[in-house]
């Protein structure tokens, strides 16, 4: 087990290193980074200052060494837009909003997905099951931003129930409902499908038949005994979905003017604030890698076969 963890962590570190190499090459090899960062009417002196500040006149290998050294010390360079505040600081100030949004969206989709999937599995081929299946196919085909716009159209424009833009600090929980629902919709379908199929398997298992034979009411069997085991696949799916969750957050935050890191990235890219953009991408990638390692280790801990095969 210890060997497995060590191997997995090492692989993760190699992957993170590959990602940083990718970020470095993308920013350096796609042309002159200085001209991306400066407005077109920048003076020669400003240009020279920026080149000296970021060391762009050094040889590439030296820039790479400095880049890695800065990363190791958590220095991501000053932001070009936010009064030269440290890029890391800007990123961290936006992180809570994104965590609230993604957390709420994920909880919503897990709860709804489990309930709908379980109900569909207990009545296979019923009207409910068919409608749910159709809705799942539809839900997996609708782009997140369209769902968001439609919800604004319904709840903000016609019903005037909920606000369409703002963050937690300005609107409180009321502002969280629409964005979280939009982002959560993306995963309800996936969660429902997986719970339905695993629930069908579980309901066929011997221990469920045993409980039933002993005279346990159907409701208790399904919601207490079967559901526990049928829900496990959702959490393994979580690691796979995490990258998609972050992509969805970028779009959702843009629609609802949610002050999180996804919107920060889009804004930074438009004002050519590449130190901040690079920080956001680096941390998002690292989060995904860490989540994957944690899930893999949890899996290996639960299932010894994985340790040997992996």
């Amino acid at each position, binding site marked *: 087990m210890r060997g497995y963890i060590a191997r997995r962590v090492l*692989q993760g570190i*190699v*992957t993170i290193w*590959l*990602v940083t190499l*990718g970020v470095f090459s*993308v*920013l350096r090899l*796609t*042309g002159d980074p200085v001209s*991306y960062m400066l407005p077109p009417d920048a003076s020669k002196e400003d240009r020279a200052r920026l080149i000296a500040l970021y060391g762009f006149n050094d040889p590439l290998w030296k820039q790479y060494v400095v880049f890695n050294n800065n990363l190791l010390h958590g220095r991501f360079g000053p932001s070009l837009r936010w009064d030269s505040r440290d890029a890391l600081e800007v990123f961290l100030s936006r992180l809570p909003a994104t965590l609230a949004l993604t957390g709420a969206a994920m909880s919503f989709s897990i709860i709804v997905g489990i309930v709908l999937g379980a109900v569909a599995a207990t009545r296979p081929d019923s009207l409910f099951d068919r409608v749910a299946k159709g809705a799942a*196919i*539809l839900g*997996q*085909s*609708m*782009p*997140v*931003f*369209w769902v968001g*716009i*439609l919800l*604004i*159209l319904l709840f903000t*424009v016609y019903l005037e129930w909920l606000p369409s833009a703002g963050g937690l600090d300005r609107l409180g929980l009321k502002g969280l409902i629409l964005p979280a629902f939009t982002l959560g919709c993306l995963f309800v379908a996936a969660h429902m499908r997986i719970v339905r199929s695993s629930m069908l398997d579980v309901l066929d298992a011997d221990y469920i038949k045993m409980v039933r034979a002993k005279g346990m009411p159907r409701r208790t069997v399904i919601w207490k005994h079967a559901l526990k085991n049928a829900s496990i696949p959702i959490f393994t799916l979580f690691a796979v979905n995490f*990258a*998609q969750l*972050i*992509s969805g957050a*970028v*779009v959702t935050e*843009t*629609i609802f003017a949610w002050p999180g890191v*996804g919107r920060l*990235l*889009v804004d930074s*890219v*438009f004002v050519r604030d590449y130190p901040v*953009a*690079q920080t*956001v*991408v680096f941390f*998002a*990638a690292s989060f*995904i*890698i860490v989540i*994957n390692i944690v899930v893999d280790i949890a899996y290996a801990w639960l299932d010894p076969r994985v340790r040997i095969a992996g």
Partner: protein
Amino acid sequence: MARSTTPAPELVLPQPVPAHKTGLVAWGRSVFRGAPVFSLCFLTLAVACAVCAPLLAPYDPIQTNRTQTLVPPSLSAHLLGTDHLGRDILSRLIYGARISVTVGFLAVFVSGTVGTLIAVVSGVVRGWADTVLMRLTDAFLALPFLMVAVLVVSLLGPSLVNVVLVIGLLRWMTYARTIRSEVLRLTEMDFVRLARAAGARRRRLIVQHILPNIVNTLLVLGTLEVGSAVITEASLSFLGLGVPRPLPSWGTMLAEAQTYVFTAWWLPVFPGIAITLLVMASNLIGDWLRDRLDPTRRQL
């Protein structure tokens, strides 16, 4: 009189086969058994719109008309209404199909090619090449896909070619992983072993024995991926990083519609329906192809 307990065997006469069970019609029926008819029709429609947009579109999709702005949908002039610059929504949707269909298919072509190449090298060469390529696949899988796409497209500059390349080069991992395991399975099978024992070279082995056997998997994966490529293009366009304006991409139309969501419901509704239908068509056709091409899942 006692009845005989065993009934007399009935004489089975050869029945004439009805005409609709032979020939082209029957062949067509057997090929399209259980096919998602609506999805195939919509995909055909989208491709037709993409190819013959100038013939089908009632108006110029880019020409603005200041006197006809935000006209609601009506049967008289503008079937789906006009946008804030007086451009006909239906015409823009028809031209928009060009971008979605082109990006969808080209991006899948790029990612399918890269993924297959990596999978075949990985599965046939094995050893260190396999290790390196699979680590690389892991690294790409860990990327926050849309974020990287946003960053790279903004650096390269938004254009159709860049969008295709970025989507294509960031989405090959599914192919690499699935096809690699397929290749590993194939290389252990008797016909490949025999070919190798008979002295077939690696190149012949790949071209003659491995590639023909992964075509089905590639086709299924590719069809399923068209949908996600279409969504990604629309997302990038929505964020302002897709195909540059005034070219009508469905994503761009939605981005512009956001400003008018309070006054003109038809602006956001129709492009979204178009995207959803195209993505759904690709998903359903992919599911059908998977069941159809996999003999173990086919129900005869």
